[in-house]
């Protein structure tokens, strides 16, 4: 019985130290960062938003079409230097978003590679009209967890350097 308890204690300690080391590996990011998207890399400014579940991007001229029996979407993303890329992706799903005034909005969701610092991930991204917003890309918790800690006093602290 005693032995069993000791093993349990040891296991708990091991678990505690593992979660500590995971914490130590988190990268600090500011609330505004340059990230690259779409593999070949367009660098754009992104707001790092712990209040958002998912990420969303300003898609210019989105066109939905059918290819190989599934729905695709093609759109343009432009950065503030007016460099742009065309992104052409299959539609992963369509989602309904609750708006502040109680309404609902349908959004197209795609999977997109985003690189922040040295970490590249493929995450679901909502296509939105963010033309009246300051930042083209909003990065939510599904990208940030569990790799990043967000420091609201900092901006442009990382450069996109993914392989």
């Amino acid at each position: 019985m005693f032995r069993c308890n000791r093993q349990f204690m040891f296991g708990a300690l091991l678990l505690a130290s593992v979660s500590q080391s995971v914490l130590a590996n988190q990268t600090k990011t500011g609330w505004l960062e340059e990230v690259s998207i779409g593999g070949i890399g367009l660098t754009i400014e992104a707001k790092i938003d712990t209040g958002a579940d998912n990420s969303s991007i300003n898609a210019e001229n989105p066109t939905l079409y059918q290819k190989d029996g599934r729905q695709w979407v093609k759109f343009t993303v432009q950065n503030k230097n007016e460099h742009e890329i065309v992104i052409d992706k299959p539609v992963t799903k369509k989602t309904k978003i609750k708006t502040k005034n109680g309404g609902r909005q349908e959004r197209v969701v795609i999977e997109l590679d985003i690189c922040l610092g040295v970490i590249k991930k493929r995450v679901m991204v909502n296509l939105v009209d963010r033309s009246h917003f300051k930042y083209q890309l909003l990065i939510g918790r599904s990208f940030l967890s569990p790799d990043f800690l967000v420091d609201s006093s900092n901006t442009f602290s990382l450069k996109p350097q993914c392989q």
Partner: protein
Amino acid sequence: MPVKKNKTKTVLGWREWVSLPELGIENIKAKVDTGARTSALHAFDVKINEANEKRTVDFKMHPLQDNVDYVVECHADVIEERDVTDSGGHRERRWVIETMAVIGDTKLPIEMTLTDRDTMKFRMLLGRTALKSNFIVDPDKSYLTRPDDES
């Protein structure tokens, strides 16, 4: 050269329990939101008193999520009126108050705008201005300063 303070910041989850003792709110669940500059509090029946030199505000709020029966009546000093853009891109003129907030072991004055957030899940948003001197945010965690079952 200015002295740069390098104090260790407290890690918050993306949701935390907050106390607002000056408003009589013992516990309110706040969304810790680096996407928002200013903090916001859900309020209704907002009445501004301009009779005295100091502008004050009376308002009511529902501090509990999904519960509109429990009402707290609050009173605070008004700092100013400010134009705020919400997450949907709408501009709105809001009253701004300053009040003491207790988050874990940290007690600090924060500015909050008053808004009708009854359709939204969180009755309070903790924005960047309130976070930047004392806290960093772990988007993978919740309720790091106080367990969730303590409400």
